[in-house]
């Protein structure tokens, strides 16, 4: 029973609204795909075909809560999306292909994708032919429920635009797919702005930062000015942070004073100092300290493991969070400040009664973009009252927490990909 574009509403998948094609969407988040054996192209190696499709699915996974996995073992009936090449009448399809030129592929909502093998499909960035990657991303968009979108820059435009190297799924296409499947949510192990000093060609020292979100052994660089993560992220922690535990960290702290510029990663009972010059963790720093080092040695009085931490340069304190408590550690006296630990509620009171993370935080993030500190827990964040706000309203308690908000309403499209697609 061949499924057809306009009439397909398979029993196996729910449709959200009868009749309105826009609302057809898969009702599950993990989708299996397969390049079917009778549908290999004669133009590219099978490995290239599979790699390109894997990358195309990953690109949609980077901007939606969907995960895709290639499944070459399950019975075909259990495969959600089947891809194949053919020419003319092909693969039992009711819509024959027309030969080289014009129609190069078609797809079914929640169904299969066919590519016209009379077209000259090429691997990404070869500069000629029809980019199989770009066509695959477009057709997968249809399968997921997107119609043609007549907007310059949209990957869902019906006509093929000659291969512009490095095409990506833009903001509005992301919002279109998120309208069908929702945004990307999840907790983070830590979030931080990585600061480094550089000398311009004119010899002046400039200070730059990049923002990183870490979750387990993976991380995203977040491009604040573009409101999205770097294309192609997440990547493995060990790819970008050499010598830091590959399964991720609990916290990151950057102590920055006239005399100290030290970046620390914390994991379990240990911590590492990171060498920004050589882009790797120190084994021994200029003060003769060897790493990894016990937290109890480097920060006496601070328990481990910790949930998270941040350095507040206003009072030279590192705030270490563990459970419902917070420890203030003075980097000058090298000791926990008297009166600590305190309850987080006490040291960081809620502005709106009851609207408080209470404890067991995921991340404490000092953001240079927002010039503010954020406490993150689960899918929500709370911003600390800023210095300027404090001055305007001296009656407000210091370090008050403003009401919580959803992380995905401030930082966009930080999406996981399936573990089989992580290393590409």
């Amino acid at each position, binding site marked *: 029973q061949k499924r057809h574009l306009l009439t397909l509403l398979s029993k196996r998948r729910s449709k959200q609204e009868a009749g309105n094609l826009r609302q057809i969407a898969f009702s599950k988040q993990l989708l299996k795909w397969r390049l079917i054996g009778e549908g290999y192209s004669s133009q590219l190696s099978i490995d290239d075909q599979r790699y390109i499709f894997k990358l195309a699915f990953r690109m949609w996974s980077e901007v939606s809560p969907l995960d895709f996995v290639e499944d070459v073992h399950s019975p075909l009936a259990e495969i959600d999306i089947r891809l194949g090449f053919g020419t003319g009448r092909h693969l039992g399809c009711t819509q024959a292909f027309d030969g080289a030129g014009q129609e*190069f592929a078609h*797809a079914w909502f929640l169904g299969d994708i066919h590519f016209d093998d009379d077209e000259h499909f090429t691997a990404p960035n070869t500069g000629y032919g029809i980019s199989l990657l770009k066509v695959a991303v477009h057709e997968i968009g249809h399968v997921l429920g997107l119609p043609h979108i007549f907007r310059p820059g949209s990957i869902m435009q019906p006509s093929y635009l000659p291969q512009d190297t490095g095409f990506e799924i833009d903001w509005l296409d992301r919002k279109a797919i998120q309208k069908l499947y929702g945004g990307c949510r999840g907790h983070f192990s830590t979030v931080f702005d990585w600061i480094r000093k550089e000398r311009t060609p004119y010899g002046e020292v400039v200070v730059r930062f990049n923002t990183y979100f870490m979750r387990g052994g993976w991380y995203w660089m977040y491009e604040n000015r573009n409101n999205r993560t*770097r294309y192609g992220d997440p990547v493995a922690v060990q790819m970008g942070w050499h010598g830091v535990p590959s399964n991720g960290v609990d916290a990151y702290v950057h102590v920055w004073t006239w005399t100290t510029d030290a970046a620390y990663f914390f994991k379990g009972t240990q911590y590492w100092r990171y060498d920004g010059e050589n882009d790797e963790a120190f084994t021994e720093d200029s003060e003769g300290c060897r790493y990894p080092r016990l937290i109890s040695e480097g920060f006496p009085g601070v328990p481990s493991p910790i949930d998270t931490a941040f350095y507040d340069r206003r009072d030279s304190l590192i705030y270490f969070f563990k459970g419902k408590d917070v420890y203030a550690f003075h980097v000058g006296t090298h000791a926990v400040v008297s009166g600590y630990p305190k309850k987080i509620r006490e040291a960081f009171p809620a502005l709106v009664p009851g609207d408080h993370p209470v404890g067991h935080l995921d991340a404490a993030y000092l953001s240079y973009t927002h010039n503010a500190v954020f406490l993150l827990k689960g899918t929500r964040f709370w911003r600390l009252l800023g210095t300027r706000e404090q001055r305007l309203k001296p009656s407000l308690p210091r370090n008050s927490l403003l009401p919580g908000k959803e992380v995905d309403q401030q930082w966009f499209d930080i999406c996981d990909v399936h573990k089989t697609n992580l290393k590409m």
Partner: protein
Amino acid sequence: EKIFHNRDHSDVDVHAPHHAELIVDTDTARQFLSKYGFLKPLRLDESQSKEADYILGGERLHMRIQEGRSASRTGIETDVSANIPDLISGLRQFQVMSGLPETGVFDDATKAAMNKPRCGVPDRLSPTGSSVKDNSTGSSVKDNSTGSSVKDNSTGSAPADPVASNATINITDDQSDRNLKPASPR
């Protein structure tokens, strides 16, 4: 893989792929417009879409009704070119969707657009022919960070750090290619 038997593959029929029929006149343009949803295919009731005997007005008629052309009682096909308004509106809609001048005429620009490589999924999906136009406001996302400068106005005592004093250090959010962390191969 193409089947071959000669060691030098000389028997592989490297057939030149056959080429799609070009859109060259109003007939082929009509087929294009109908295929991609700009023309409502003549609405034939399912039961009439084949050759058969029909009782119409008490009279038995052998009639062949073929999609895309109007069928008359006598079975003589009348040329649907009488549906010119249909064709013109279909052309206009395609031209609007494609960002072409809305002439309603099968002109060169329209012909070229129709012969471009494209996806086989219809441009207008819903049976009601409601167009699928991206109605987004195209609101660009406000860029919230263009190198915010970090200015610390704290009244800290001795300048405990380069930012505590009144000095201002510009810290810019760097997405230039100088960022040290490797991006993924893409």
